[in-house]
């Protein structure tokens, strides 16, 4: 028996898991329309690769990863792209996000799948394949997996942890996957073991899932894979948190500001392991996942659901009770309230939790914090939740950060035990998003400052360069003048007494040269539209030319007359 460790805090909420884990996983039927949001993982929003009217096949890439910290998105079924437009996102804000709307053609025809010979290829290429296959963490955080499939700085991992704990109430998707499709999870774990060069693989499963544990143990034995061990762990929320599970299995506590890979440990969700197996061995991109549909419904069950399926279509399958009034994505502890039931199932949707006022009664109103410290006892991240609460409430964000607000995993244990029923996590979420917004503003201000300073510098430089150019030109002219003068002096070397006329001559010569140049330029620019003229037009042109000549002659005459009449005017004019 492996020695297990304890993590600090944690709670034991009612698990409600037996509602949905009695029926096998069902395949969701094909629906008429799929709305696939492009932004489904942490990182950049993928660039759309299709436009309205395009035909797509199941598994065809419709969004290309934008940068390294991003993951591709694929068509869930074959059909026609109806639009690439803003649709309501599966996000608490209720805002819209760029989505590809696909009208199913009913054939559900796969595109050509290309399995990867990952053993023979360099790791960078395997990672690229995973990125293009859109594989992200399916535990809920949707972190792009290709960034995690990495042996780390020391070249190998000590322990690879596969997270099958699934501690959140109501959710049973990982449980059912391990029971029914344990082979994909184990095969995925074996691939990850080889890719990360892990010495051992520990698959942690909470001991309230005896069927999953038995099934997985049998699978490991049947497949004969080495260095993979199934480890039942005590049931305590949130044992499925990555840091908590690592602590339970290895005893390593990952300190603030560090990653688990610094300690030779990496953690993947069991569903992610299966997705990696399918992406590499079968060439299948990530277009569906197992979703628990539970809560205030008649027949809670797990379904394999294509991404882009409207949540209401899934809820209709399980028979919502009449008093249903809300839809939560995720579980009751960490889930997010959806703006409506029409939002699509995305990669982060492990559970569609249907709620009602009876099932989740409205929280009694918040009472003052009495600093009892219950929250600190329950906090699995070893934080001081009441301090975080005070600072978040008072908007003293700097202090909240000093108390490691960003180590909070928003598990909700503190709010669960709070005798004053303070919605603590709401305060932390508020403070976190405020701090992020400020950081965005600050970095924008820094960029603006840099760009402004660069512009000032550029203007200065341009001024300097212009001045230098002018000075160079002036020097050149001066040199020319001097040369001309020298030539003049050489020409009439006898007349040493008259250098001034020489200089004058040189200047005049320069002016004459400039005038000749201008005339030549004028002559060179012939009117472009006088080549093909009708006789009529030609006559008009000749007439105008004649008139112009007349006018010019008259002007010249007038000037001559003025000169004759008033000789001083000449000197004035000059």
């Amino acid at each position, binding site marked *: 028996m492996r020695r297990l460790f304890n993590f600090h805090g944690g709670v034991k909420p009612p698990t409600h898991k037996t509602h949905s884990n009695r029926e096998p996983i069902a395949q969701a039927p094909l629906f008429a329309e799929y709305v696939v949001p492009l932004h489904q993982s942490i990182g950049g929003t993928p660039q759309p690769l299709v436009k309205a009217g395009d035909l797509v096949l199941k598994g065809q890439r419709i969004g290309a990863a934008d940068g390294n910290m991003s993951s591709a998105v694929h068509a869930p079924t074959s059909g026609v792209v109806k639009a690439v437009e803003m649709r309501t996102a599966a996000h608490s*804000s209720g805002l819209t996000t760029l989505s590809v709307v696909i009208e199913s053609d009913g054939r559900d025809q796969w595109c050509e799948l290309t399995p990867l010979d990952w053993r023979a290829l360099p790791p960078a290429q395997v990672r690229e394949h995973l990125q293009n296959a859109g594989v992200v963490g399916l535990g809920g955080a949707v972190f792009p997996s290709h960034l995690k499939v990495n042996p780390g700085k020391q070249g190998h991992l000590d322990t690879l942890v596969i997270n099958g704990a699934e501690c959140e109430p109501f959710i049973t998707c990982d449980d059912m996957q391990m029971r029914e499709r344990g082979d994909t999870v184990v095969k995925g774990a074996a691939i990850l073991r080889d890719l990360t060069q892990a010495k051992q693989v520990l698959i942690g499963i909470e001991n309230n899932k005896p069927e999953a544990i038995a099934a997985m143990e049998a699978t490991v034995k049947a497949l004969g894979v080495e260095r993979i061990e199934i480890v039942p762990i005590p049931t305590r929320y949130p044992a499925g948190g990555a840091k908590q599970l690592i602590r339970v299995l290895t005893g390593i506590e990952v300190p603030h500001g560090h990653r688990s890979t610094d300690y030779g440990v990496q953690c993947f969700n069991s569903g992610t392991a299966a997705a990696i197996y399918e992406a590499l061995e079968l060439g299948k991109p990530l277009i569906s996942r197992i979703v628990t549909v539970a809560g205030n419904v008649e027949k809670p069950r797990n379904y394999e659901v294509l991404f882009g399926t409207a949540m209401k279509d899934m809820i209709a399958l399980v028979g919502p009770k009449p008093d249903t009034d809300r839809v939560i994505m995720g579980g009751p502890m960490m889930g997010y309230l959806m703006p409506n039931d029409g939002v699509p199932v995305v990669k982060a949707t492990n559970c569609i939790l249907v709620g009602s006022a009876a099932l989740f009664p409205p929280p009694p109103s918040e009472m003052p914090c009495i600093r009892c410290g219950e929250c600190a006892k329950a906090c699995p991240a070893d934080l001081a939740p009441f301090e975080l609460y005070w600072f978040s409430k008072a908007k003293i964000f700097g202090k909240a950060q000093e108390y490691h607000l960003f180590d909070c995993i928003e598990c909700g244990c503190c709010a669960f035990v709070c005798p004053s029923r303070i*919605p603590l996590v*709401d*305060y932390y979420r*508020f403070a976190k*998003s405020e701090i992020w*917004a400020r950081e965005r503003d600050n970095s924008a*201000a820094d960029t*603006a400052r840099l760009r402004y300073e660069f512009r000032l510098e550029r203007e200065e430089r341009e001024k300097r360069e212009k001045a230098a150019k002018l000075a160079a030109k002036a020097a050149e002219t001066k040199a020319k003048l001097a040369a001309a003068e020298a030539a003049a002096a050489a020409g009439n070397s006898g007349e040493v007494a008259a250098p001034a006329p020489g200089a004058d001559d040189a200047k005049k010569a320069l002016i004459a040269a400039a005038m000749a140049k201008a005339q030549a330029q004028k002559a060179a620019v012939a009117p472009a539209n006088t080549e093909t003229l009708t006789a009529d037009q030609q006559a008009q042109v000749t007439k105008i030319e004649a008139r112009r000549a007349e006018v010019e002659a008259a002007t010249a005459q007038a000037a001559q007359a003025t000169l004759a009449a008033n000789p001083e005017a000449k000197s004035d004019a000059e």
Partner: protein
Amino acid sequence: MLEALIVMALGAVILGGALGYASIRFKVEGDPLVEKIDAILPQTQCGQCGFPGCKPYAEAVAKGEAEINQCPPGGDDGVHKLADLLGREFKPLSGEHGIEKPKSVAFIDEQTCIGCTLCIQACPVDAIVGAAKQMHTIVAKQCTGCELCLPPCPVNCISMVPIAESVETWKWKYPVFDLKQKRAA
């Protein structure tokens, strides 16, 4: 008596020398206060404060030549921060320098733009791309929303578009609870 004087004089010379050396050796480049004020300012470089940029305004504030409530893009929040930093009393934004507006970026109507490059010359952060007689466009990511490109445009083809909230920039609201419900409970 004389000994005491010599000791004191010697002490003065040594300490004076040490201080003089330190003031040269550990000289702080620039005014740290100006830097701190500049860090609070939003760097829109809009000139609404009456100074030709955020840095000059920061310098003026540091010298006490300008009030702390002359920066509309910074808003009341910015005035609060400046007040905290400088130990001055908070003042609401002065109306004569403008009002706080929602964050916007400039947008060029490409149908109307004649390619005169006047806006390019006006932009303090080089966020406008274009060339003479070619259509111009704004690099929205770099635009600070200073509105300096609006007045020079001869065809009024630039407008300010408020930045819409997106899923990425959305913020969780401050938790509030219903007082009515509290009374009922």
